[in-house]
């Protein structure tokens, strides 16, 4: 029998991003109504079409019911008790990073996010979002040389309104679901990426989301458009301070890939997960969807989900273009009282479309980790294929692992394969590693990392290393 206490010790690393930055912020009053939405829109100097989009979404949201099918247990969210706009006070217009409040830069430095130009060597362009607004985007000039637009969505609304009007809400319509409607009504910032025809983005793009205040929700919106024959790799990271209250995060991500374009979207989600008793933590309700519009287009989601008290997230692909490809690689780790309900939807509409799903769930402590997925073959999806694999690992006898794959086919000339398994850390393997002089903790973390290797292989290199470390830290003290 594995020493339970030892294993528990392995998962108990404190959350190191839990600090709060003491900075003056501008907040609007709590609550949600049409006036608040108008106020947000006014603060962001938005054109009329966007205000209409927000108000329409708000009307729809009011008529919708909060979904309960995921059977997640959390206390009811009071949507009138949330601040929908919070921004660090800074000078009106920032022309260079030198003008950004040094405290903010310090914060991102602490988080290990290279914002300052000296850190060019890392070759990653970053858009940093602090509470409701984007505070800085790096490497803009270099990207502009290639015609790549990478900026905050607020800037894009001002400078590229035509693109926003054309694409916003086309992948995730405002009425898609409860949280998407809420986001459409109140989204404050996020990133916008446009890769022109034939361009391979010269560097990885990254956005970093940071929630700083305890009473404001974060509602960011990301829109990525990859024109014909272009390609981009996009990374997303998230952290938040430790508060006793639950903070709401409801984001929407929309990806559009045209003919021969490819988008790779990687996430390392490490929002504050609450303490051992389940007090505090982020409620993470995210709608992510990509549309493979063009022929031979490809959208690949890879995610490492380790944080949040509640995760409700199903990055999906709509495979419309002929021979388009959708991929989903996920590692979800839950500990203590965390609950994660995550998975993907692969909707095959066009012919000869292909999708791959690899999902690894690790549940420790008293947590609940569910995979919920949908694979659908439409009537026109001739010659399409799907392969799904979901593995769960249970650590300790209090954690639960559920698998709910849903498969629907209306096309005989297509193939769907799904397999799932549940296991625990093998005592034989642990014994073997220990007998070779490897410490218990290291052995456990090696095995977990081996279990997740299929997914880590898909992550960009910097992220893969980070994810591996993150998992080891998160697991400290929990294996049993």
């Amino acid at each position: 029998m594995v020493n339970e206490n030892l294993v528990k010790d392995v998962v108990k690393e404190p959350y190191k991003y839990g600090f709060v930055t003491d900075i003056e912020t501008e907040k609007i009053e709590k609550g949600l109504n049409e006036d608040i939405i108008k106020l947000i829109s006014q603060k962001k100097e938005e054109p009329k079409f966007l205000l209409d989009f927000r108000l329409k979404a708000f009307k729809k949201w009011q008529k919708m019911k909060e979904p309960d099918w995921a059977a997640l247990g959390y206390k009811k969210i009071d949507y009138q008790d949330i601040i929908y706009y919070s921004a660090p006070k800074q000078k009106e217009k920032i022309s260079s990073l030198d003008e950004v409040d040094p405290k903010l830069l310090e914060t991102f430095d602490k988080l290990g996010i290279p914002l300052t130009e000296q850190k060019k060597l890392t070759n990653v362009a970053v858009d940093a979002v602090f509470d409701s607004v984007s505070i800085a985007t790096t490497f803009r000039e270099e990207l502009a040389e290639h015609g790549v637009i990478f900026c905050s969505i607020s800037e894009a609304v001002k400078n590229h309104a035509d693109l926003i009007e054309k694409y916003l809400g086309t992948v995730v319509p405002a009425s898609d679901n409860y949280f998407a409607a809420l986001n459409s009504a109140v989204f404050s910032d996020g990133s916008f990426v446009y890769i022109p025809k034939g361009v391979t983005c010269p560097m990885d793009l990254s956005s970093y989301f940071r929630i700083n205040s305890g009473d404001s929700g974060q509602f960011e919106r990301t829109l990525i458009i990859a024109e014909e024959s272009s390609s981009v790799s996009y990374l997303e990271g998230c952290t938040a301070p430790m508060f006793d209250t639950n903070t709401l995060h409801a984001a929407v991500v929309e990806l559009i890939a045209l003919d021969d374009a490819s988008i790779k979207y990687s996430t390392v989600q490490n929002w504050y997960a609450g303490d051992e008793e389940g007090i505090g933590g982020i409620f993470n309700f995210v709608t992510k969807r990509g549309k493979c519009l063009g022929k031979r287009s490809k959208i690949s989601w890879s995610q490492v989900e380790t944080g949040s008290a509640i995760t409700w997230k199903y990055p999906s692909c709509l495979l419309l273009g002929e021979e388009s490809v959708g991929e989903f690689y996920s590692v979800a780790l839950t500990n203590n009282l965390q609950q994660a309900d995550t998975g993907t939807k692969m909707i095959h509409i066009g012919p000869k479309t292909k999708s791959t799903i690899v999902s690894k769930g690790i549940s420790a402590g008293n947590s609940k980790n569910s995979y919920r997925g949908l694979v659908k073959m439409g009537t026109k999806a001739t010659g399409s294929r799907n392969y799904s694999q979901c593995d769960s690992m249970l650590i300790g006898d209090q954690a639960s692992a559920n698998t709910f794959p849903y498969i629907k086919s209306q096309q005989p000339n297509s193939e769907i394969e799904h397999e799932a398994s549940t296991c625990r850390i093998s005592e034989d393997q642990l014994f073997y590693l220990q007998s070779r002089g490897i410490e218990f903790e290291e052995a456990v973390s090696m095995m977990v990392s081996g279990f997740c290797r299929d997914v880590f292989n898909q992550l960009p290199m910097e992220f893969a290393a980070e994810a591996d470390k993150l998992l080891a830290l998160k697991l400290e003290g929990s294996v049993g």
Partner: protein
Amino acid sequence: MKIIEKIKTNKSDDNLTEIQKICLHKLQSNPLPNPKSELWRLSKKSKLSNFLDYSVNEKDSKFDIPYPKNSQSTIRLIIGENCQIKLIEKNYSIQQLSEDELQKYIKEQISFFKQNENWSDLLNLSLSCKNNILGLKINGSKIPPIEIFSHASSNSLNAKTLVIFLEKNCDVELLQVNLGKENSSLSQSTFFCLKENSSVNHGVVSYGENRSNLLNSLNVIQQKNSAYNLGSLHFKFNYARFEISIKQSAGNAKTNIKGMQITKKNEQISTYTKIEFNGPNGFLDQINKSLADDKSHAIFEGSIIVPKIAQRTDASQLSRNLLLSNLAQIDTKPQLEIIADDVKCKHGATISQLNEEELFYMRTRGITLTEASKLQLSSYFQEIISFIPISKDKWDLLDKLLNEN
């Protein structure tokens, strides 16, 4: 929907048994299942209404048994035909359950029922009159094969209930045949209670004719060291639901399930299974096959529930599906819900059509396309059919599936 009207307007009728009254009372506030729930979401509303559109028939008409009784020893019972049975032999005994035993057991079961999840059972028990409930207590070993028939007559709805207690160390082969006539609805509920060390090979073959409907529910409780093997086949129904609920009450039991459903024309046949392990060392091996052709729709939903107490459970579930037409549809949803950590659980699902390479190979050897398809189908069917306890010389199911259907 005649039946629903009847349930809604039901006034206490002295002819009703106590069980019927309890079930009617449970159904009265919500006489129909929730169409938005996972269990009923895919069920076609019009087909369910059609099921409920016949008036209840409590008297049985004669019907043809599809194959002859080939051995004198086989015990054949027809639910509804006043089948009195009391066999006490040297090695075994088969007796009818006393009314008290029957009432007590069914009442206990009803107390666990939920309106939506057990709607089919509640409907069955509220409609099933005394004559249409058969309760058996089986004891001993070397028991001759038992065959139990249920059937629905044309233009009516028939409700039949079967309760079987398998006593300790008992070992039996039991085939249940559900037959639907043209324009008929059959509601069949079966309750199995397997005591310690007992084992059963249970076969369920259900087939209908034009526009016949079936709600077939099977509730099994397995005590320690019992073995339950189920082979099932459902075909030729306009609308059929097969709901299986198996509880290993103290673990240490074995369950093997091999089921198949075949849909053609405009039919919809679905299988829902729920297997709960309430103790350690449970074992499950389940395979469910579907074949959907023409404009039909086949559904499989299976859930495996492993709570903390069920350590060292070994469960596997496989859903294999053949989709043969552009207009047909298959939905499948295998599910695992696990809390215990020391378990081996896996599931798999595939949807495809006939293997083209195999077809091509056979055709290069001079076999026609039709014959080659038949050969492939027969191997697909055979795995399930061979698991149904019925010998080939009595009733050639494979032939029936390949040629008649």
